[in-house]
């Protein structure tokens, strides 16, 4: 029977020849993830099973990234609780502050999640790893606890919607714009319970980082997972990182889809999601005059090296507007060091930015840039819900890193073309290093 990549990965992990949408299966999980907010509840639930040790100390990954470096006493206690558990269990992939980065940038970077894997994480943006051709989905803490105990979980096989992106991307249009446009088109529950499969010629030319951004936001359309068919770009990314075997799956040509949606990317300009839903998008030319107080460039959505390069291209030899605070958060220590080595930090600091250590921090209103009443932020993050980054009367506008950087310079929401900056390779250029 013809299957999609999502169905094939589920079948392989359930020990079945084939599965079909709607079927309930129990499957072996390759990697399970928890963080400083979700793991404490999972650990308490795991204790209730009476088991002494987790299913596999190498396959449970614990990353303190949300409220770290500890923002207050209660956060410190949650982290200590998780740290003690990690030590007691001898967890291989526990990352202390200094090694830790934002989990969804860190795990692919360290080769912990690989193509063909079935991954669950007690964090909704676990779907990010779909960029590698893995099936990755977010669950709650109790589901994580069940996997900690037995290494298996029940799944419902989702229907798949295929998104075909064709045409040539315009300057300064990256993965963020493609996914925001898509969410704007189908709505925040447009893919509820479903798999989103991203393909087409415009995807083939999209960088690994751009693909992580797209898969990351599949959850913002309600999807179970977002997934790409692994290709040479994935192969190049994974080689040298993987320390165990992995497998490239692909969808059969005659696989069944719930729907096939075609999107002409040549018609898409940089997108901005207005408050208070990621689906509330407008093209940058339709934004109007919106003054801003703060810009955040970072997160599991857009805190990777090419995102920082893209921002640096815009900020080079410029100063941010005096009324704006620009906060830049490299997602992992490796990205942090590489950005520093390439001279991006000089560009950021000269522009007037502050550079934060890796943390989820302000994206969920934790620390490192919480908003006051009435303040407006342009953020490269993933959610603009009411109160997400601070006061319930603050406003969040989501964009790609280049738009965020240009907005910081101009003090209002604006694209980099207004500054006369040229996009040489869709945020992939090395101009700033050379």
């Amino acid at each position, binding site marked *: 029977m013809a299957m999609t990549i999502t169905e094939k990965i589920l079948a392989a992990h359930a020990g079945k020849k084939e599965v079909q949408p709607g079927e309930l299966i129990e499957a072996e999980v390759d990697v399970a993830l928890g963080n400083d907010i979700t793991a404490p509840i999972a650990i308490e639930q795991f204790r209730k099973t009476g088991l002494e040790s987790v299913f596999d100390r190498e396959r449970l990954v614990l990353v303190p990234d949300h409220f770290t470096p500890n923002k*207050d006493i209660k956060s410190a206690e949650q982290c200590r609780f998780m740290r003690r558990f990690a030590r007691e269990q001898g967890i291989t992939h526990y990352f202390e502050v200094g090694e830790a980065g934002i989990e969804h940038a860190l795990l692919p970077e360290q080769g912990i999640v690989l193509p063909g894997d079935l991954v669950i994480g007690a964090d*909704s943006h676990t779907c990010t790893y779909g960029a590698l051709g893995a099936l990755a989905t977010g669950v*709650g803490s109790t589901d994580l606890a069940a996997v900690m105990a037995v290494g298996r979980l029940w799944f419902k096989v989702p229907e798949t919607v295929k998104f075909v992106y064709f045409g040539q991307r315009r300057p300064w249009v990256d993965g963020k714009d493609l996914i925001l446009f898509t969410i704007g088109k189908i709505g*925040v529950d447009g893919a509820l319970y479903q798999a989103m499969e991203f393909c087409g010629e415009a995807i083939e030319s999209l960088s690994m980082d751009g693909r992580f951004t797209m898969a990351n936001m599949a959850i913002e359309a309600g*999807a179970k997972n977002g997934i790409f068919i692994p290709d040479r770009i994935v192969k190049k990314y994974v080689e040298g990182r993987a320390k165990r075997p992995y497998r490239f799956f692909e969808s059969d040509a005659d696989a069944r889809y719930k729907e096939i949606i075609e999107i002409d990317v040549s018609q898409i300009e940089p997108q901005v999601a207005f408050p208070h839903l990621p689906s509330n998008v407008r093209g940058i030319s339709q934004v109007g005059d919106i003054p801003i107080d703060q810009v955040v460039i970072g997160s599991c959505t857009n805190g990777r090296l090419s995102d920082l390069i893209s921002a640096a291209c815009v900020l080079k030899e410029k100063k941010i507007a005096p009324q704006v605070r620009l906060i830049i958060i490299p997602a992992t220590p490796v990205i942090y060091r590489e950005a520093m080595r390439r001279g991006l930090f000089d560009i950021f600091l000269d522009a007037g930015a502050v550079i934060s250590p890796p943390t989820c921090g302000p994206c*969920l209103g934790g620390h490192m840039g919480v908003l006051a009443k009435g303040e407006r932020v342009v953020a490269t993050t993933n959610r603009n819900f009411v109160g997400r980054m601070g006061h319930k009367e603050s406003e969040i506008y989501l964009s790609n890193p280049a738009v965020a950087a240009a907005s910081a310079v101009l003090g209002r929401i604006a694209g980099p073309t207004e500054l006369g900056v040229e996009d040489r390779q869709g945020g992939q250029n090395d101009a700033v290093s050379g």
Partner: protein
Amino acid sequence: MRFQGRAWKFGSNVDTDAIIPARYLNESAPDALAVHCMEDENPRFASEMKPGDILVAGTNFGCGSSREHAPIAIKAKGVPCIIAKSFARIFYRNAFNMGLAILESNEAVDGVSDGDTVEVDLSSGTIRNLTTGAVFSSNPIPSFMQQIIYDGGLMGHIAKREKA
């Protein structure tokens, strides 16, 4: 299982940041979370709701983060049941795992106003608006899922099963 209480009506896409803002996720004690449940969305709910009251909402309830703190806060607040047009995927799983009953019914959501008294029969899926007299049906929850709710959630259910 039957529940009866005042309906608190909410719109569509009530996200987990609205249910329990992330600024309170530096702890996970149910009672501490319950204090802040829905405080940005409807401050009156936080102060005026009474244990037993029922949430009624539009589509995609519980969208956003995977935080289990959301159903924990709602349950600890004393809400036994949520009726919505649809639920976000992760919230749906989390609610059952936490022992919080949830029902999907377009008709019931459209036929209940804020402040109405509602009665829910979990085994039959019947929802009655005692204020207007209207009766609605929803897909009944399978008995083993009802048992999870009755046992206080998935872990309680497993523990009870292991003992038996």
